[in-house]
C-alpha cells in the first residue's frame, strides 16, 4: 500500500536551530572567527580547498566553521558553492619549476642543487603533546638565513642527464574536465590526475599504502617533494595576452619508481606525479603512488589485479562527496521501499512455512 506522507517541517526547522546552537557551543567560550580558522587551522583549510577543488582560503575556513569541523561536510559546502560560480576561463598550466619553495626535499639525492629545505614540517617532531599550546603563549620568531633568489630546478631534470628516467614530454592537448563531462572509462592520465587531486585523502592514502604493501608494488621513492607558491596566469580575452591573476600554494610530489622494463619500455626509473592545492603533503605523496600504479597499461606492465591498478575502481570511489552522498542517503526516509521489502520477506516466510507444514505432513 502506498501512503503519501507529508510533515516534519517543524521538526526539521527545530533540528536546524539546535544544530546552530550546538555549533556555537558554550557561549562562555569566545567564538571562532573565519580569520582564526584560516590562520591557525590552515592544514584543514588546505584539505578543504584541495578536495573541494576550489582555491579560496576564506571560503574554506567559512565552510569548516559552518560544518562544525566536519571536513567532508565542509568540502561538500565548497563543491556546492563552486557550482554557482560562472567560469571565466582556464589558466595557463602552472610552472612548478618557478615555485617559491617553503619546503623542498628529496629522499633520493642528498646533495641536490638548491639543497634539502625542510620548511615548516611535522617531520622529526617527537609527537608529544605540547601543553604549552594549552596556555596562551608567545611564539618565538623563526630564525632566518640569507636566501638566494634563484628558483630551484626539479630533481628529475638532473637524473635525466643520464637518460635513466622516463621523460614527461611537452604536450598541449587540451585536458578533459570531469566537472563538465561525466567521468567515463577509459580515463586518460589527465583525467585521472584531475580525479586524484580532488580525491579523498584517506582513500588515496589507503590505496597508496596498499601498493607499498605489495598490491601492485611499484617501489616508489620520493624523488622530490616541494611546497610553495606559484603564479597563475590566464589569457585575458579583452587584452589578447596572458597576465598573472594570482598565486596559489601547491604541494608537488614526484616519485621515482624502480622499473625493470617491459615489452615496450627499457629498464629505467619511471615516475608518479602528485600535485595538490595547499600544503597537503600526505595527499600529494599518496596521489603520486596511485598515479604510478594506474599507469601500468601505458608502461606495458602486468595487471596483477591489485585494487590500485583498477582505474574504474579507484576513480569511481575516490570522490568523498559522491561517496558520502550515496552512503548517507540511506539514512533518509525509505519507508515505501522498506514497506515493499517487508511485504516480500513476509510472503517468503509464509511460503517457506507452508512448505515445511507440507513436508511434515508427507
Amino acid at each position, binding site marked *: 500500500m502506498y501512503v503519501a506522507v507529508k510533515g516534519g517541517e517543524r521538526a526539521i526547522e527545530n533540528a536546524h536551530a539546535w544544530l546552530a546552537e550546538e555549533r556555537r557551543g558554550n557561549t562562555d567560550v569566545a567564538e571562532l572567527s573565519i580569520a582564526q580558522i584560516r590562520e591557525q587551522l590552515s592544514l584543514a583549510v588546505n584539505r578543504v580547498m584541495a578536495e573541494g577543488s576550489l582555491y579560496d582560503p576564506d571560503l574554506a575556513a567559512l565552510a569548516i566553521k559552518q560544518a562544525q569541523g566536519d571536513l567532508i561536510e565542509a568540502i561538500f559546502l565548497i563543491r556546492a558553492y563552486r557550482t554557482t*560560480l560562472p567560469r571565466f576561463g*582556464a589558466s595557463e598550466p602552472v610552472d612548478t619549476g618557478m615555485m617559491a619553495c617553503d619546503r623542498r626535499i628529496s629522499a633520493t639525492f642528498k646533495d641536490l642543487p638548491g639543497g634539502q629545505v625542510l620548511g615548516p614540517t611535522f617531520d622529526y617532531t617527537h609527537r608529544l603533546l605540547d601543553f604549552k599550546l594549552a596556555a596562551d603563549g608567545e611564539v618565538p620568531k623563526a630564525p632566518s638565513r640569507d636566501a638566494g633568489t634563484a628558483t630551484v630546478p626539479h630533481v628529475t631534470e638532473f637524473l635525466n642527464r643520464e637518460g635513466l628516467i622516463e621523460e614527461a614530454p611537452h604536450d598541449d592537448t587540451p585536458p578533459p574536465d570531469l566537472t563538465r563531462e561525466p567521468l567515463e572509462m577509459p580515463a586518460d592520465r589527465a583525467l585521472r590526475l584531475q580525479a586524484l587531486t580532488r580525491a579523498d585523502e584517506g582513500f588515496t592514502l589507503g590505496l597508496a599504502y596498499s601498493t607499498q604493501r605489495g598490491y601492485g608494488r611499484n617501489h616508489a621513492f620520493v624523488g622530490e617533494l616541494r611546497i610553495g607558491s606559484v603564479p597563475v596566469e590566464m589569457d585575458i580575452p579583452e587584452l589578447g595576452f596572458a597576465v598573472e*591573476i594570482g598565486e596559489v600554494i601547491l604541494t608537488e610530489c614526484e616519485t621515482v619508481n624502480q622499473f625493470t622494463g617491459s615489452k615496450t619500455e627499457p629498464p629505467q626509473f619511471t615516475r608518479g606525479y602528485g600535485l595538490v592545492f595547499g600544503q597537503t603533503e600526505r595527499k600529494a605523496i599518496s596521489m603520486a603512488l596511485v598515479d604510478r600504479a594506474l599507469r601500468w597499461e601505458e608502461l606495458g606492465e602486468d595487471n596483477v589485479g591489485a585494487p590500485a591498478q583498477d582505474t574504474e575502481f579507484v576513480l569511481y570511489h575516490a570522490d568523498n562527496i559522491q561517496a558520502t552522498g550515496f552512503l548517507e542517503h540511506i539514512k533518509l526516509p525509505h519507508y515505501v521501499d522498506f514497506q515493499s521489502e517487508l511485504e516480500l520477506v513476509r510472503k517468503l516466510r509464509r511460503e517457506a512455512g507452508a512448505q515445511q507444514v507440507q513436508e511434515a505432513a508427507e
Partner: protein
Amino acid sequence: MGLLAKAPEGRVAALLDAEISRPAFTWLRAPEIGSTMVRARAGATGAPFNLGEMTITRCALTLETGEVGHSYIQGRSKADAEVAALVDALMQTAMASRLREAVLEPLEAGMATMKAARAAKAAATKVDFFTMTRGED
C-alpha cells in the same frame, strides 16, 4: 596587472586614495565573481590537466577621458577589482609615472619583502650535511 591581482586585500585602495582622489568612471562590466580552472602539467612538464578552480573577480571600466581599465584578480573582493581596474586605466594617462611611484612600486616592494622573509625562513631550514670521520685507520 599581476601586481594588482596579487595585492593584499585593501592595499591598492589605501595606496591610491593616499595619492589622488578617484576620478569618475562608468562601468563597462560591473565587478563579477567567478572562477578560473587552474591547470598544471603531468610530471611538471608533460600534458596539461585540470588541477581545480580558484575564485577570481573581474571588471572593466572606462574613464571620462576614454581610457579603459580591466582587472582580473584573485579572490572575491569587488572593491579590490574596482580599484585595480581604475589603476589599470589611470596607467594609460599622464598620471602613469606618478602612480607607478605611489602605488605599483610600494606594492612591489611590500610583496618582495614578504617573499624574502619567507625565503629566509626556508633557507634557515636548509640541511647542512657533514660526514663523520670514518674509523677505518
